[in-house]
């Protein structure tokens, strides 16, 4: 606001505070109307009664985090529509999950989490291992989301980083702790509607009223940027990106919880297929916004700062406040899903296999776990190296550790417990080796260019096959 007359500044501050207050009041109203969970089934699966639009909206709100919004605008700025091709792989992943996996997950009885699914297929040790991996993944991803939220709030209000982290984590934890999955899904739907309405409208506004030339300049920039991006990409980078987009985020705990919480197998399937289709159009809008920024924002601008700079350069302070609302919605809708999924996994997969719990006790443990995971993630947010690096590390660990065991477990008639366990441990260990050891050990630094997800996934698949050949089929439990 520097450089504006005092009267204008006062009006801008009042309008900004009003916009934020209206958003805060509406979010509070929606969260309160979602009601507190009274049973663990409500907390973990929202009573298995969620309709299609809410499953779709919640899935889309969860996967559209800082990477698929701010990150994709930056990608459009630097490499045009190159990432649309890679984004199509992500859409394909969702459609395949919806078509082949989600209905199978939903049809299983007594499953609250992916750990439960793996436990049903491979017995207790694998159940607990999958639970621990899920909790670590959700906490790590939550730390990345809180960091991203902190960066946005700090940038706009000039607050110290720790207080921005406390605000973002505190508000989200509050409604997730009491309302569980239902509150998470319902607030996700509200936040999805907020950012999916406001961001395209901001884009159109800038394009029509601030863009330099409607068609010619835009197309020229799009072609130029896409060619530049294509020229800078090596085949190994491309393979790594395609694998990460295809498998990295597949069925992470919040998505699996939504598949399990759908009202029917049909809704579970259609929710994923629609969310996959939506991602194509969403990526198109975000990348176009980045291309539009090329004529307005300085070429050397940092990728993550392109969206904020574009809005700051072209629109008024009040619109910048609207952008804050959009970004906070994007981040909170991903964060609440991760907190709930991590908490449910901790109660169901890590505590319950060892201790017999009543429904009320499970609910209380789930609530305490939400607060503990949020606290751990908030502390982690202060040491997360970078948003994109953090996300890539999480995906590189998740896909090799869980996906082979989960997918084969759902499709093979009598999966062997040894195969599941070997695949999870091998995938995890190889991913950790490539992520954290290879860059630090001089003797193996030549391997640092290989994306960790590729060797780790390969090793997990080989381990699964070895375990399947060597292991014995599970004994039928007499009950």
């Amino acid at each position, binding site marked *: 606001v520097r450089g504006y007359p005092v009267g204008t500044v006062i009006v801008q501050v009042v309008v900004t505070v009003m916009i934020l207050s209206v958003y805060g009041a509406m979010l509070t109203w*929606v969260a309160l*109307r*979602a*009601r507190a969970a009274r049973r663990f089934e409500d907390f973990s699966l929202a009573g298995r009664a969620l*309709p*299609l*639009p*809410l499953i*779709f*909206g919640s899935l*889309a709100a969860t996967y559209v985090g800082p990477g698929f919004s701010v990150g994709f605008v930056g990608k459009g700025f630097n490499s045009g529509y190159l990432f649309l091709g890679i984004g199509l792989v992500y859409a394909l992943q969702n459609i395949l999950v919806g078509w082949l996996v989600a209905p199978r997950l939903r049809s299983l009885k007594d499953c609250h989490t992916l750990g439960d699914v793996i436990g049903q297929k491979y017995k207790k040790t694998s159940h607990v291992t999958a639970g621990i991996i899920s909790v670590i993944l959700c906490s790590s991803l939550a730390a990345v989301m809180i960091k991203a939220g902190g960066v946005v709030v700090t940038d706009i209000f000039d607050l110290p980083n720790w207080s921005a982290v406390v605000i973002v984590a505190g508000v989200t934890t509050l409604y997730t702790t009491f309302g569980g999955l239902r509150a998470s899904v*319902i607030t996700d*739907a*509200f936040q*999805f*509607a907020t950012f*999916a*309405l406001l961001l*395209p*409208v901001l*884009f*159109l506004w800038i394009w029509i009223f601030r863009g330099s030339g*409607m*068609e*010619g300049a*835009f*197309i020229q920039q*799009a072609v130029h940027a896409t060619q530049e991006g294509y020229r800078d990409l090596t085949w190994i980078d491309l393979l790594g990106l395609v694998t990460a987009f295809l498998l990295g985020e597949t069925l992470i705990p919040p998505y699996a919880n939504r598949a399990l919480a759908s009202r029917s197998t049909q809704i579970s399937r259609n929710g994923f297929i629609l969310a996959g289709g*939506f991602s*194509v*159009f*969403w990526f*198109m*809008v975000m990348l*176009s916004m980045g291309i539009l920024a090329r004529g307005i924002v300085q070429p050397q601008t940092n990728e993550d700062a392109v969206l904020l700079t574009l809005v700051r350069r072209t629109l008024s302070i009040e619109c910048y406040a609207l952008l804050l609302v959009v970004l906070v919605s994007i981040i909170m809708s991903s964060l609440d899903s991760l907190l709930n999924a991590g908490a449910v996994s901790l109660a169901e997969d890590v505590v319950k296999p060892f201790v017999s719990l009543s429904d009320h006790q499970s609910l209380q443990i789930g609530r305490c776990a939400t607060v503990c995971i949020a606290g751990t993630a908030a502390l982690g947010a202060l040491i997360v190296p970078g948003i994109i690096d953090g996300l890539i590390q999480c995906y590189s660990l998740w896909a090799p550790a869980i996906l082979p065991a989960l997918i084969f477990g759902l499709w093979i008639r009598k999966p062997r417990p040894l195969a599941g366990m070997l695949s999870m441990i091998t995938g995890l260990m190889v991913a950790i080796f490539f992520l954290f050891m290879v860059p630090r050990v001089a003797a193996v630094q030549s391997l640092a260019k290989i994306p960790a997800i590729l060797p780790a996934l390969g090793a997990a698949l080989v381990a699964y096959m070895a375990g399947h050949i060597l292991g014995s089929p599970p004994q039928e439990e007499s009950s």
Partner: protein
Amino acid sequence: MNVIVITLVVVSVVLVVASALWVLKALFKELSKSRSRS
């Protein structure tokens, strides 16, 4: 080519906004149901 790209961008914007409105409508329906239950 220009026309195709511009059409795709506009169609994407329309579909994203339409999805948002569809979810918003379902959200209010769900919230009014939970009000009548309580």
